[in-house]
C-alpha cells in the first residue's frame, strides 16, 4: 500500500466496500468506492429499483444556540425562515461577499432552535473556517458542532423507502410517512427524504457504530451498493450541479441555474446579496444533448450563435444511452438552439435542452 492510500480518510463503511471488491479512489482525501463492478448497472438499479451510497465523507454540522436562526439567515442565500416546522429542509448556496459560491448544502430544521447543515466533503474544512469567521464577525451566540460521529447512507430509487422500511423496522414508520424534503429523528437516527439522484429516496444519518449493520440489512433486502461513479451520472441526468465542476467561488448562483434558491425577499441581508443585485449574470447554465456520436467531457469548448461557452460536466447518460452535459453559455443562448462542442479536435453537433434530463425514471428531454 502506498503512503498516499495510507493517508486517505476512511468512512465507517470502508471495510465493507473493500470486502465487496469495490474499486476505491481518492475523493477529496477520502478512500471511497467508485463502483462495485459496473457503474452503469448501479445507475440502472437506482433508476429502476433501489441502490445505496456511502456518503459519510460529507460533513453534517449542527448549528445551535439562541442566534442560530439569525446567523443562518445571514450566512445562506436561501432563507431558513422558510423552515417553519422541525424536519423541514432547504437547499441553499453559501456565498462569499462577491456572490461566488463557497458551497451548496441542505439545511434541516432540528427544532428547539437548532439546525443541521450537510456540507460537501471537498469543501468541508474551508466551509467550517468560513462559518467560524462569520460567527466571530457577528458575535453570534451560536454553537457549531461538526458531526463526524455520524455515518450517512443515501438509499435512492423508486423502491428505496419500501426496502428501507423492510430492512430497518425501527425506521419503517418514518420511512413511509415522510414528505419529500422533510426529515425526522427515529431510533437514534436522523432520516431525511432527500437525495442527489433525481429519484425518490432517503438519506440516513446514523451513529457510526450502526452503519455496518444498517448497510448489511439494506443489502439483504436487495438494495444495491452503488459508488461515486453512478452517483455522478445520476445527478447529471437529474440536472443537479456538482460543486467544483458546475460551480465554484468564481460563479454566482444566478449563473449556474440556482436563482430559485436565492431568497431575495424577507427583509434580510445575506452574505453576497449586494453583489448579486449589482452584478447581472452574463452567463447561464444550460443542458446539452449530443446529436452526433461521441462523448462530451468537462471543459470542452462550446460555440453557438450566442457566443462561446464551456462544458462544466459532461459524460454518458445510461438512461438516454448518449452523451449529455451541463454547460455555461452566454445569456442569449436559448433552449432548442443548435450548438457545437469541440470533442477531440472535432466540432460535434449538440442541442440546448432544459435540465433535468431524467427524473423519477422518466426521460424529460426530447432527443
Amino acid at each position, binding site marked *: 500500500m*502506498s503512503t498516499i492510500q495510507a493517508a486517505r480518510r476512511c468512512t465507517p463503511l470502508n471495510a465493507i466496500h473493500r470486502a465487496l471488491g469495490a*474499486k476505491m479512489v481518492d475523493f477529496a482525501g477520502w478512500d471511497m468506492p*467508485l*463502483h462495485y463492478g*459496473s*457503474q*452503469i448497472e448501479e445507475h440502472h438499479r437506482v433508476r429502476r429499483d433501489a441502490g445505496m451510497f456511502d456518503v459519510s465523507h460529507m460533513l453534517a454540522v449542527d448549528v445551535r444556540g439562541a442566534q442560530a436562526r439569525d446567523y443562518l439567515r445571514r450566512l445562506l442565500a436561501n432563507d431558513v425562515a422558510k423552515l417553519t416546522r422541525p424536519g423541514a429542509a432547504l437547499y441553499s448556496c453559501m456565498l462569499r461577499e462577491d456572490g461566488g459560491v463557497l458551497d451548496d448544502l441542505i439545511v434541516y430544521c432540528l427544532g428547539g432552535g437548532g439546525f443541521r447543515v450537510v456540507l460537501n466533503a471537498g469543501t468541508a474544512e474551508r466551509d467550517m473556517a468560513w462559518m467560524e469567521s462569520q460567527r466571530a464577525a457577528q458575535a453570534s451566540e451560536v454553537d457549531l458542532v461538526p458531526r463526524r460521529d455520524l455515518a450517512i447512507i443515501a438509499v435512492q430509487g423508486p423502491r428505496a423507502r419500501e426496502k428501507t422500511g423492510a430492512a430497518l423496522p425501527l425506521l419503517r414508520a418514518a420511512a413511509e410517512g415522510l414528505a419529500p424534503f422533510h426529515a425526522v429523528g427515529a431510533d437514534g437516527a436522523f432520516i431525511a427524504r432527500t437525495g442527489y439522484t433525481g429519484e425518490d429516496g432517503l438519506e440516513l444519518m446514523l451513529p457510526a457504530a450502526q452503519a455496518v449493520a444498517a448497510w448489511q440489512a439494506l443489502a439483504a433486502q436487495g438494495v444495491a451498493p452503488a459508488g461515486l*461513479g453512478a452517483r455522478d*451520472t445520476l445527478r447529471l441526468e437529474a440536472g443537479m450541479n456538482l460543486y467544483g465542476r458546475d460551480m465554484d467561488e468564481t460563479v454566482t448562483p444566478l449563473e449556474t441555474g440556482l436563482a430559485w434558491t436565492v431568497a431575495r425577499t424577507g427583509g434580510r441581508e445575506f452574505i453576497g446579496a449586494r453583489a448579486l443585485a449589482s452584478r447581472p449574470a452574463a452567463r447561464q447554465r444550460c443542458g446539452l444533448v449530443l446529436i452526433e*456520436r*461521441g*462523448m462530451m*467531457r468537462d471543459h470542452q469548448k462550446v460555440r453557438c450563435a450566442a457566443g462561446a461557452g464551456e462544458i462544466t460536466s459532461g*459524460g*454518458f447518460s445510461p438512461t438516454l444511452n448518449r*452523451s449529455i452535459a451541463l454547460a455555461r453559455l452566454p445569456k442569449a443562448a436559448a433552449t432548442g438552439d443548435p450548438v457545437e462542442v469541440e470533442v*477531440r479536435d472535432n466540432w460535434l453537433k449538440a442541442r440546448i435542452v432544459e435540465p433535468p434530463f431524467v427524473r423519477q425514471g422518466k426521460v424529460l428531454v426530447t432527443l
Partner: protein
Amino acid sequence: MTTPDNLKYSRSHEWVKSEADGTVTVGITFHAQEQLGDIVFIQNPEVGRKVKQGEECAVIESVKAAADIYAPVSGEVVAANQEVADSPERVNRDPYAAWLFRVRPSSPGELAGLLDAAAYAKHAESEES
C-alpha cells in the same frame, strides 16, 4: 486467465493476435478495460487507413475517461469490428473476443518487439498504483 499466452501485447495495453492470413487482430487487454470501467463508445479506424506503429488510430470512451488506442504495428487497416462499436460493453465482458480492428502489417518484424504474456503481465502490474 487475464493475459492469454497465445497473444502479443503492447506497452500501451493493446493485445495482438497473428492470424493465418498474415493479418493481425487488435483489441485491448483485460487490464485496460478494468482500468477504464464501463466502456460506452468506440471509434474505430476506417478500413484502408495506413497506420504507423504507435500512431493513435482508435478511441475508446468509458464512463470515466477517453483512451487513445495505438496501432501496435504499422500497416493497413483491413477490418473494423462494427458489432463491438455498436455494443461497446462487450469489451468489458470479454476483451479478448471483442476485437477492434485488423491490420495487414507492412513491417512484420515489429511483431517480434511486442511483449509476451508474462512480460505484459509484469508491465501491467507495475503500472498499478
